């Protein structure tokens, strides 16, 4: 197997500038993860325009964003354990056993074990990424426009059936995202679509405006409500140490969680929340013989933490090799690459090894840095939970305004961001998830172009979409993913009814 790209990557990631950027990213990521309500996707949305304005080269921006992503998967556990409030979506399951442990006065041990399982999960995920991504890329070289189009149908099918409890809303979100992507100049015909004769919309809706509006303004409005609902009390960290017995006890759970996390991460569109939920449910089924899960079982803590970190690495596989993000957060990162006019795909490994390799190498380095940051300094990070919202939220808003203004130097862009944010708030209150909209938006142009190219090749014959083996397999997979969970649910209900 050719791993040359990785050596190129290490030489990029180990330059002092990128090491520093990675360290800053890990630190910020842990804080972003630890703070309740804001997660990796918000953090990346906020820092992306700033990285872009600073003129960082694409590989450094990717290293920064990847470090924030990984860091927040580590940090999310802190507030889950200490506050019983998940720091981000991937850490929801961590609270189930983590917080009971904290209430038993074992918060320090819980933070250590979850830090270790995060590390193991992260490293297993990156090794999987290193080995599996070039393989998938070599497969994807054979993809034509028709296969790409069907691949995206598969991605939306996975998203609809696995993300959120209301598939119709998830799918509506995807379609809205696709619709937003059609705004602007159509390159093949020169037609302006949905621009209402406004020159600003000629280039389409700006990614930074959309992402900051959806993930920062609407988040701040939601935080206002949860703030009004009452404040929480931070538990004490206590003594931090790792018992060898606990490490041995949780090894199986950590390894199983890591593998599940990676697989879920590779599936397009499904992020850390799905990974940790699947791994916790499975671990409970496998290991919970004495009914200790949910009451402070170390295994119930280790499994989802390993899974969410492994998932973060796995989510890069489809993003880097196929250009289809593996999670909401990688969807934002895909948008970041597009800002630099880079379209990820199988050629990226050969053409831009410094970006792909640099990113993957930085994940190895980042996980080591994060372990070092998270073991001795966990007490300091937990103090940050005391930061009041009246300081935090204005800070987030300043970053949002600066981010949007600095990429456009126009107040109109800030106003548009505000409009998008209010719309996002309404949708979120109605139970819509924002990630499908972003996923639809970043895939929209590619999906349409591939459909049109496929039909241009076939002379308008729709049969081309079902011609190759790869397309057929993807159609079948899409159908299975879309209908499978529903059938399984009915089947298990019927079985339960029979007793």
């Amino acid at each position: 197997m050719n791993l040359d790209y990785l050596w190129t990557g290490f030489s990029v990631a180990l330059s002092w500038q990128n090491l520093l950027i990675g360290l800053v990213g890990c630190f910020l990521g842990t804080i972003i993860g630890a703070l309740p309500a804001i997660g990796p996707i918000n953090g990346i949305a906020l820092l992306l325009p700033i990285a872009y304005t600073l003129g960082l080269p694409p590989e450094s921006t990717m290293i920064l964003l990847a470090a924030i992503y990984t860091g927040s998967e580590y940090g999310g556990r802190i507030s889950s354990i200490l506050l019983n409030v998940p720091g981000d979506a991937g850490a929801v399951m961590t609270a189930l056993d983590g917080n009971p442990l904290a209430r038993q006065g074992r918060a320090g041990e819980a933070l250590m074990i979850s830090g270790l399982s995060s590390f193991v999960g992260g490293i297993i995920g990156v090794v999987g990424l290193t080995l599996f991504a070039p393989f998938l890329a070599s497969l994807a070289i054979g993809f034509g426009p028709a296969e790409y189009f069907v691949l995206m149908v598969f991605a939306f099918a996975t998203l609809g059936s696995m993300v959120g409890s209301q598939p119709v809303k998830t799918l509506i979100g995807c379609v809205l995202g696709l619709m937003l992507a059609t705004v602007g100049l159509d390159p093949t015909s020169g037609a302006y679509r949905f621009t209402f004769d406004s020159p600003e919309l000629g280039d389409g809706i700006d990614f930074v405006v959309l992402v900051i509006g959806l993930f920062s303004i609407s988040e701040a409005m939601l935080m206002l409500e949860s703030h009004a609902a009452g404040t929480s009390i931070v538990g004490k960290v206590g003594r931090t140490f790792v018992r060898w017995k606990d490490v041995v006890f949780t090894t199986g759970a950590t390894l199983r969680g890591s593998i599940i996390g990676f697989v879920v991460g590779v599936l397009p569109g499904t992020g850390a929340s799905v990974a940790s939920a699947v791994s916790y449910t499975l671990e409970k089924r496998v290991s919970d013989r004495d009914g200790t899960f949910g009451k402070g079982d170390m295994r119930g803590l280790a499994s989802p933490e390993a899974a969410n970190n492994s998932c973060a690495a796995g989510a890069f596989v489809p993003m880097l090799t196929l250009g289809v993000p593996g999670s909401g957060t990688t969807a934002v990162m895909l948008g970041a690459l597009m800002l630099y006019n880079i379209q990820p795909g199988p050629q990226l490994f050969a053409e831009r090894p410094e970006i792909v390799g640099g990113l993957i190498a930085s994940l190895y380095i980042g996980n080591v840095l994060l372990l070092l940051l998270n073991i001795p300094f966990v007490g300091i990070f937990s103090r940050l939970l005391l930061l009041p919202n009246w300081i935090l939220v204005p800070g987030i808003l300043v970053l949002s305004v600066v981010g949007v203004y600095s990429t456009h130097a126009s107040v109109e862009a800030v106003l548009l961001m505000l409009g998008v944010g209010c719309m996002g708030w309404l949708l979120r209150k109605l139970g819509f998830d924002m990630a499908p909209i972003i996923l639809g938006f970043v895939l929209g142009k590619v999906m349409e172009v591939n459909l049109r190219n496929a039909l241009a090749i076939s002379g308008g014959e729709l049969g081309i979409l079902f011609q190759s083996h790869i397309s057929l397999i993807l159609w079948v997979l899409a159908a299975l993913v879309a209908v499978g969970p529903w059938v399984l649910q009915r089947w298990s209900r019927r079985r339960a009814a029979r007793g």
Partner: protein
Amino acid sequence: MDAPQRPLAGSLSNRLAALALLAFSLVYGFAGSRIDYAFSSDPLGPRVFPVLLAGILGLLSLIYLLVPGRSETWPQGSVLMRCLALPVLVLIAALLFEPIGFAGAMFVMTAGVGRIFGASWRASLIGGLVQAALWYVVFGYLLDVYLPVGELFAVSRRG
């Protein structure tokens, strides 16, 4: 979509949203079918994909209308007022951004938002001053991001 003027029951607001989405899909589909173009190098052209999307959205909104699902409860009373005050404060800051400059606009926003997040007047004013100054130094000097100084000040300096 219209902003809800008063708290709505879960399924009612979902049904309204479904109707709004349905209307949107019709408008979008109609506008999509009338996209103007002279020629296209592919058989599909620029119209078909948007119309297809409009059809899918229409279908999904019908399902949504019939099975509205759950939504969160809407904020009421003072919480609702503060939820609306937040975007208004950002709007004010955005409009002040070029006339009075970055630091002034950010002071108004951070102090105001701090206040609606429950800080006392004193704390929010001090917090606003500190944040405005801090971010100005971080972005203007350390990171060298272009920020407006403010037309008012620019004029007085020139004078």
